[in-house]
């Protein structure tokens, strides 16, 4: 029981101690306490996961505090522990532990290590609150909490203008999504009369035909609710349309990118949709939108990723692309496939990011791949680990990504709808691109002729603002150097995940019982839970299946069960992604290893397309014109014309200015001449007499 609470609150306590008393306990104290807190949480989460995977777990809700109680609106802090939240908790705490430990090494030159560790713990806590929420408001609290932590960490190097701009951008773009989410919460309350998950989910089937009347239009209520929630997910998970903040967020320190902008926070949207699967299932139109948006994101991000040169940005676009995969999996009702990919992706993408961080560390804070090259034998461990991560990402067989990505692509195929097919083909093309840009990254970074000898001098000075003197002495010789063990150890942990998590978890996320044909074991939510619980008690020896693992935390209508159907797709569907991955790797070798003049040629021939991709499909430029410039113009208008000229001018400023004028006039009367004073007195008398006479008349 204590451990269950510790799984969520240990990072919070660590954050409070490190955040409030950081100066007293020193940076070493901060690092120890935060690492301890998050590792404790990880152990507690893993214990829960162990129970779950042995089938001995009872979904439960742990009360924490009464929060708001107004009439029949009752919201309490509580920890909802079920399969879905436990999977998320494990991902969060394990990756977070790795990142915490890694940061001890990575940030060793930074003057504010304590603050950094405190923020990381704050983020971990908020993310845990998000996934263990029992109601939408608590989820929203966690949702905003991770947004805040993300803002603080992106802008961690606040003396850099670009970091501040990126932090503000991330925050504002997320506000758009959050606005949708909060509207969704309100719509839920209107529709279901509660924002408690259980109450919403149990009522969803009954409300399947409900409509909202809005401005004379009848809108399908569940579709509206789902789309509004999805807007929140689009913002947080950087799906197409609200994705522009994610690449810029790479201004934050690399461990932040790994934890927040790859493994956990950006997957909150996936989690939200999966959590709301009992509602989404009754809103097929919303699912269609989710699929299309996810698929488009996957391909757009992949095309951009091919053309970027900043090592972190390439991985960021790759993250966006993979999130697109997860979303179209959700859209075809393959919730468990999306969660599966979420887990494996968390491992290999955090590995890639931290590996990139290790490269950046080795290259003395150089992030441009054009200024790297030929360092594979200088940092061999990092090199190997990056290979593992990339193999997993490209979906090479028997690495983690292979299982989850193929499951998604097969599920999309098995959906047999136009958007399912659309998503399937996009998934195939994106798989090619994924493999291509991954090996482009590896080859440009580690192979070829070293391009860093000259560039190095300027950049060493550029980064000294957060490098102390130690660093200067240690690395005065300007050679790339392997990272210390404290940074490599977490990488190894993640690499194990990237290697084996797919195979380990395949049954739990995709397994179907052999004795029952696919699609017939899914019963209505409430009864189902009882079945699974009783079944689990006498069936320890049984193999783990998706239904046993997730219980009723995911809800799939029998006719929508694409994951089960995915097992029966034609052979070519299963093989095609592998072939595409291999082709992508091969092409990358051709382009960047064997015929290094080819990329330049291609860029010349396909200049317009390349430019279009390189400039990120002009999303930033478009938004700048559409929203940023107009907002600034509007803001300036209201500020200068509205507030300053009108309200201030007629209000406080005007009145005080007139008062001063009047005071000036009055003091001019005060001439100092007695005869004038006497004159005023006499005038006063005359005025008084006239006034009263006039009143009486």
């Amino acid at each position, binding site marked *: 029981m204590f451990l269950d609470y510790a799984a969520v609150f240990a990072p919070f306590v660590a954050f409070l101690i490190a955040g409030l008393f950081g100066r007293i306990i020193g940076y070493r104290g901060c690092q120890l306490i935060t690492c301890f807190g998050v590792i404790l949480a990880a152990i507690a989460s893993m214990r829960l996961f162990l129970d779950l995977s042995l089938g001995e777990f009872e979904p439960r809700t742990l009360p924490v505090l009464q929060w708001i109680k107004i009439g029949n609106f009752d919201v309490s802090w509580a920890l909802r522990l079920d399969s879905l939240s436990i999977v998320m908790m494990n991902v969060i705490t394990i990756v977070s532990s790795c990142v915490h430990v890694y940061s001890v090494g990575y940030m060793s030159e930074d003057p504010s290590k304590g603050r950094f560790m405190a923020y990381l713990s704050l983020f971990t806590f908020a993310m845990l609150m998000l996934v263990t929420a029992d109601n939408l408001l608590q989820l929203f609290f966690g949702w905003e909490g991770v947004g805040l932590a993300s803002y603080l960490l992106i802008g961690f190097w606040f003396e850099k203008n670009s970091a501040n701009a990126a932090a503000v951008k991330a925050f504002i773009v997320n506000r758009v999504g959050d606005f949708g989410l909060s509207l969704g919460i309100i719509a839920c309350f209107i529709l279901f009369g509660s924002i408690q998950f259980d109450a919403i989910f149990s009522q969803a089937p009954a409300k399947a035909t409900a409509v909202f009347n809005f401005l004379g239009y009848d809108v399908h209520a569940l579709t509206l609710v789902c789309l509004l929630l999805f807007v929140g997910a689009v913002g947080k998970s950087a799906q197409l349309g609200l994705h522009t903040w994610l690449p810029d967020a790479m201004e934050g320190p690399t461990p932040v990118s790994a934890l927040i902008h790859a493994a956990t926070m950006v997957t909150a949207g996936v989690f939200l949709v999966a959590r709301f699967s009992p509602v989404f299932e009754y809103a097929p139109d919303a699912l269609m939108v989710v699929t299309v948006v996810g698929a488009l994101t996957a391909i757009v991000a992949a095309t951009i990723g091919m053309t970027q040169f900043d090592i972190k940005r390439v991985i960021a676009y790759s993250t966006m692309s993979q999130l697109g995969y997860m979303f179209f999996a959700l859209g075809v009702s393959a919730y468990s496939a999306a969660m599966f990919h979420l887990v494996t992706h968390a491992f290999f993408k955090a590995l890639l990011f931290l590996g990139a961080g290790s490269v950046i560390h080795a290259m003395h804070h150089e992030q441009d791949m054009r200024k790297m090259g030929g360092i594979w034998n200088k940092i061999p461990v990092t090199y190997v680990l990056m290979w593992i991560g990339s193999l997993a990402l490209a979906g090479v067989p028997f690495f983690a990504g292979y299982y989850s990505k193929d499951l998604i692509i097969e599920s999309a195929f098995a959906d047999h709808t136009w958007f399912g097919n659309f998503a399937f083909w996009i998934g195939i093309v994106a798989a090619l691109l994924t493999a291509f840009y991954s090996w482009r990254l590896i080859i440009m970074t580690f192979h070829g002729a070293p391009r860093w000898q000259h560039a190095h001098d300027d950049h060493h000075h550029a980064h000294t603002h957060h490098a102390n003197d130690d660093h200067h002495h240690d690395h005065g010789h300007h050679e790339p150097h392997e990272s210390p063990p404290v940074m490599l150890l977490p990488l190894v942990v993640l690499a194990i995940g990237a290697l084996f998590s797919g195979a380990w978890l395949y049954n739990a996320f995709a397994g179907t019982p052999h004795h029952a044909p696919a699609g017939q074991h899914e019963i209505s939510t409430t009864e189902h839970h009882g079945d699974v619980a009783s079944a689990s008690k006498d069936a320890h020896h049984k193999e783990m299946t998706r239904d046993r693992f997730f219980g009723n935390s995911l809800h799939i209508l029998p006719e929508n069960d694409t994951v089960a159907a995915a097992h029966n797709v034609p052979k070519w569907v299963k093989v095609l992604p592998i072939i595409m991955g291999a082709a992508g790797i091969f092409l990358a070798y051709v382009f960047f290893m064997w015929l290094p003049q080819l990329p330049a040629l291609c860029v010349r021939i396909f200049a317009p397309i390349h430019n279009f991709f390189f400039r990120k499909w002009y999303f930033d430029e478009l938004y700048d014109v559409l929203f940023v410039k107009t907002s600034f113009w509007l803001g300036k208008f209201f500020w200068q014309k509205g507030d300053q000229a009108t309200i201030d001018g007629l209000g406080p400023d005007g009145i005080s200015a007139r*008062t001063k004028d009047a005071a000036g006039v009055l003091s001019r009367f*005060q001439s100092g001449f007695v005869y004038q004073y006497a004159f005023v*007195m006499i005038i006063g008398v005359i005025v008084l*007499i006239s*006034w*009263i*006479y006039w*009143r009486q008349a």
Partner: protein
Amino acid sequence: MTPVFHQYELGFIWPELLMACGAMLLLVIGVFMKEPKAYRFVLSLSVLLVAATAYFCIKSIGVNPQELFNGFLTINNLTQSGKLLVITGILFSLLLMNKSAEHEGFARFEVPVLLLLAGTGMMLMISASNLLGLYVGLELQSLCLYVLAAIRRDNVRAAEAGLKYFVLGALSSGLLLFGISLLYGIAGSTDYEYIEMFLAKNPVQDIALTLALVFVLAGLAFKISAVPFHMWTPDVYEGAPTTITAIFAMVPKIAAIILIMRLVSEPLALAVSEWQQILIFLAGASMLVGAVAGVVQTNIKRLLAYSSIGNMGYALLGIIAGTQAGMSATLVYMLLYMVMTAGLFAVILQLYKDGVIIEKIEDFAGLGKRYPVFALAITLVLFSIAGIPPLAGFFGKMVVFNAAVASGHIALAIFGVLTSVVAAYYYLRIIKVMYFETAENHVAILRSLSACFVLVVTLAVIAGFVFAPDHIFIFARDALALPAR
């Protein structure tokens, strides 16, 4: 022929007798001593004398109302309470002048004597129940104050101030006297009671009565420096030595306000519509000018002149209400105004720059750092004058606004609130200068025990009022309790 007076009647005017005779005795004593010993000796005796006067005054509160000397003087709760306020003001003035008169170079024994004589005049005019008695008392106090204003006759500014005060004061006396003669012409008597009865029997709707009222109230408005008869105030406040300014700010206004209260509630009680119109005009104009013109002042004494002009506007609100509650509200307001002014001057009179009492507002800069206790005292007093709760000044304003609203003068009350917002600006500016501006100034404190005593007493009232407001409210209510004739 009726006798001029009965001997028993003297028993009712102990305060006046004591003060007048004491003042003359002290004058004689002073002549036989050398300065500065004479000043100190006479000052100490004056304090004792005033204390004794106050004692008799307090004792006389609550006795049955009396008509004395063939209706020349009236003794009732209002007159006695008013006199007590005046005496308290004089006591504060004497305590404040103790050291500062020496620093300002006019430490002569005549100063306390003149102040005592002015006090005698004030008490007489408060008690008068005859227009002539009123005039004589008023002139007695005025003449003393003219002299006090010009007491540093070798100083050009002080002499100019005194002369201005005198010339304009003479003009206002003329207005007053002309009004009195008109009233006499209408009613055929100068006796308050007779005039009241005459007006009751013969409702006069004549322009003559209007003229008389305007002239009488104009003469008195000069004394309380109500707009547009305020023109002398900033110049005299600025020109006179600060010690004397303190006296001007505190004492004569109380006497004049109480005099107006008596006039409008006794002889002119039936000409309500006329005097209300006049007072509304005076009050509105005073509140406006007091608030607005103060905004651009840089001299603390001129600023306080405008502050006092505005404050008289607020005080008049209670009288305009015309009710007992309104009058007692005015009494409370005047009491608190006197206390706050005393507190403010108690600080200012101890602040010197190059041996001179500071006059410029900018001289307050940095006070918050160098003399935090004094700065805090000023802050409290200024917050109180600006009317910020829970300090006493807030309640003073509250009761007069209440009275005005209760009697239906809502527009005037709102106007008062608005002008008090404007006025708050210049009080707060002093605080801002004190705490947020730094200057390499050489302001030094020349501590005076008696001034510190005044400061402590006034601060106790200002800050403590909220905890025990009933004493002052009951005092004011009893003062206005209908005199049983």
